C-alpha cells in the first residue's frame, strides 16, 4: 500500500492552497455575510484550469484524475466551503454527467465550456415534495414533436441563480417507475425555465441556491442527456461522484477547524497558561486530528477507486457520511474551544460551524448514505 500523492498532486494541492489563501480566504467572511457569488474568483479558477480538473483535455478540462480534483475541493473548502462546493457540484456532478452520458456533440457544446470554467453547471433534481424520496418527484417532460415540454417545480438547486447549463430531471414515463425518469441539458434563458431568488441559508451562504420553475419549457430532443428513462441511474452515478466532493469539502472544513483550534488554543491564556495545555482542550484537538485523518483517507480512497475504474458507490457514501458528521462534531468543538469569541461574527469557526451542517444534508442526507451503505453490505 502506498499512502502517497504523486509529485503533480502535491504541487497542485500546494498551488490551490496558495490560490485559496490569496484570493478566497480574504473574502470568505464577506461573501458569507452578503450571500454573494464571487464571480471574480471563478474567473481566476477558470484561468487556472480548476473548473474541469478530471475532464479530458479534448473537452476543455485539465485531464488529471479525480483525486486531483478532490484535493482541490478540499483545499478550497479549507478557506471557503461555499466556493469549494460550487466547484464540486459543477465538476463532480454537472460535468461528470455530460462526460459519462453525453453524445460527442453534447460534450463539445456543453461540457467543453463548463470544463473550461466559462459556463457554470447545475444539477436540478430535488423537488419540494421529493428530497431523499426521488420517486415522489412530479416534474414531467412530454414529447411534443421535436421537443420535450417540461412542467414542474424544483427546489434547493445549487447554482440555480448563477448557472448556465442545468441538468434537469423529469418523468418521461412515470408509469415505468425507476426507468421512467430522464435528464435534459437546459441552457439558461430557455423560455419557460425560471430560476428563483437565492435562498437565505444558515450556512454555505455564498453558494447560490434557488427554486427552478418549469412552465411549458420546450427543450429540443437533442438536449436529452443519455437514453430516455436512464435519468435515475445517471443521477445516482452523479451522486456517487458528487459525494466524494462533499466528503472533500467536509475534510477541508475539519482541517480549517483544526488549524483555528490549534492556533487559538496556543494563544489563549487562562489561569496563566495557554489553554492548549489543558487536557480537556488538547483531547478535543487530538480527536479532531484523528477523525480528520480518517475522513481524509476514506475520501481519498473513494476517489482512488474511481480513478482505478472500480466501483466506489459504497465508499463514496461512507466517506461522505463519516466526513460530514465529523465536520459537524468538530466544528462544534472548535467553537467550544474558542468560547465566546467563537460564537461571534468574525471568528472563522463560527462560519465553519454553520457551513458544516449542510454537508450532512445535501447530495443525500446522512440517513440516505446509511441506506446506500446498508443496501450494499446487506446484499
Amino acid at each position, binding site marked *: 500500500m502506498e499512502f502517497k500523492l504523486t*509529485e503533480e498532486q502535491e*504541487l*497542485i494541492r500546494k498551488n490551490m492552497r*496558495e490560490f485559496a489563501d490569496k484570493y478566497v480566504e480574504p473574502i470568505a467572511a464577506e461573501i458569507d455575510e452578503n450571500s454573494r457569488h464571487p464571480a471574480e474568483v471563478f474567473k481566476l479558477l477558470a484561468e487556472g*484550469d480548476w473548473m474541469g480538473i478530471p475532464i479530458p483535455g479534448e473537452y476543455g478540462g*485539465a485531464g*488529471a484524475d479525480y483525486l486531483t480534483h478532490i484535493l482541490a475541493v478540499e483545499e478550497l473548502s479549507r478557506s471557503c466551503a461555499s466556493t469549494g462546493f460550487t466547484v464540486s457540484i459543477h465538476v463532480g456532478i454537472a460535468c461528470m454527467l455530460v462526460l459519462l452520458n453525453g453524445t460527442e456533440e453534447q460534450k463539445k457544446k456543453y461540457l467543453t465550456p463548463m470544463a473550461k470554467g466559462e459556463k457554470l453547471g447545475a444539477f436540478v433534481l430535488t423537488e419540494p415534495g421529493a428530497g431523499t424520496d426521488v420517486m415522489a418527484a412530479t416534474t414531467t417532460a412530454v414529447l411534443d414533436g421535436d421537443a420535450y415540454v417540461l412542467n414542474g417545480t424544483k427546489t434547493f438547486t445549487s447554482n440555480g441563480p448563477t448557472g448556465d447549463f442545468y441538468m434537469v430531471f423529469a418523468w418521461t414515463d412515470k408509469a415505468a417507475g425507476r426507468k421512467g425518469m430522464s435528464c435534459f441539458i437546459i441552457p439558461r434563458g430557455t423560455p419557460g425555465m425560471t430560476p428563483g431568488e437565492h435562498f437565505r441559508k444558515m450556512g454555505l451562504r455564498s453558494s447560490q441556491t434557488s427554486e427552478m420553475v418549469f412552465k411549458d419549457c420546450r427543450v429540443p430532443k437533442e438536449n436529452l442527456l443519455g437514453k430516455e428513462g436512464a435519468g435515475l441511474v445517471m443521477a445516482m452515478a452523479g451522486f456517487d461522484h458528487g459525494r466524494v466532493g462533499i466528503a472533500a469539502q467536509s475534510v477541508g472544513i475539519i482541517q480549517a477547524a483544526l488549524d483555528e483550534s490549534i492556533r487559538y488554543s496556543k494563544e489563549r491564556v487562562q489561569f496563566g497558561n495557554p489553554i492548549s495545555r489543558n487536557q480537556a482542550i488538547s483531547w478535543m484537538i487530538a480527536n479532531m486530528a484523528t477523525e480528520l485523518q480518517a475522513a481524509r483517507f476514506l475520501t481519498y480512497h473513494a476517489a482512488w477507486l474511481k480513478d482505478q475504474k472500480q466501483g466506489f458507490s459504497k465508499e463514496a457514501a461512507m466517506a461522505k457520511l463519516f466526513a460530514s458528521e465529523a465536520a459537524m462534531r468538530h466544528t462544534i468543538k472548535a467553537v467550544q474551544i474558542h468560547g465566546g469569541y467563537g460564537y461571534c461574527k468574525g471568528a472563522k469557526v463560527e462560519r465553519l460551524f454553520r457551513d458544516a451542517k449542510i454537508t450532512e444534508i445535501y447530495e443525500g442526507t446522512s440517513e440516505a448514505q446509511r441506506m446506500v451503505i446498508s443496501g450494499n453490505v446487506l446484499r
Partner: protein
Amino acid sequence: MPKVVACFKWVVDEAYIRKGGGGALDFSAVDYKLSEYDRNALEEATRCRGEGGTVTALTAGSPEAAKGLKDALSRGADTAVFASDPAFAALDSSQTAAVLAEVIRNRIPYDLIICGEGSGDQYAQQVGPRLAENLGIPCISYVQKLTVAAEGGRITAERRVEEGVEVVEASFPVLVTVLPEINIPRIPGVKDTLMAGKKPVVTVKNEELPPLGAAKLKTLAMTAARLERNCELFGTAPEDIARFVTALQQKGVSG
C-alpha cells in the same frame, strides 16, 4: 530574443518547522517549497523571454530537490538543469555560486541570469553576486524593474537603493538579482503542473564538476525565537508618560 537562466533554491517551508526541546528547531516533519524570491526570478525570466527566447531553470541541491524542478517548470521555464548530489544538500553561498557557475559556463548558453535577491531560508544575498563574479559578468542587485531593450542585447534595470531609485543599463551577458516588488509570481494552473513533467531536465552530477571547495560558512547552532508576553500598564499622568517613553527606550523600540 534572450536566453535567460533563472536560478532557484528548494528550501524548507518554515511553516513546518517545529520547536523542539530547549528551543532547538525540529526539522523532522518539514516540507519543502520553491524559495519565494526565486519565484519572482522565474516570473521575470519568463517575462523577459519574449518571443523566441528561452528560459532555463537552474538549481543545485540534494537529489530530493528534484521535486522543485517540476515546480519551477510549471512556472513557465522551458527546461531545467539540476546539479544534483547528496553533497549539495547544505552548500554555503560560495559553494552554491561555484557549482552554478561551473554548470552555466560549460552547459547553458545565456544572455541574462536572474536570481532572487536572497533565499527563503538564509537570505544571505550572496549567491547572485558571487555567481556573476565567478562568470566574470556584471551584476545588478536590488532590481525592482527590468526592461529588455527592444533591439535586444542590453537591459535597463531600476535598482531600489537607500536614497531612492537608481537606473542602470548593461549589455548582455549580465546577472540581476530581483526584489519581490518586481512582479507578482503566477500560481501555476493545473495544466501547467501536468505539463511540467514533460519538459526536459538535464541532471549534472558532482563528479562531472571540479572538486567542491571548502565551505566558508559554518552553522554552529540554530534556535527558535522566543515569544514572551510582557504586560506593563501605564497611566496618563505626565510622570507615567515619561516612564512609558523610558520603557520603550529600554526595550529598544524607540531611540
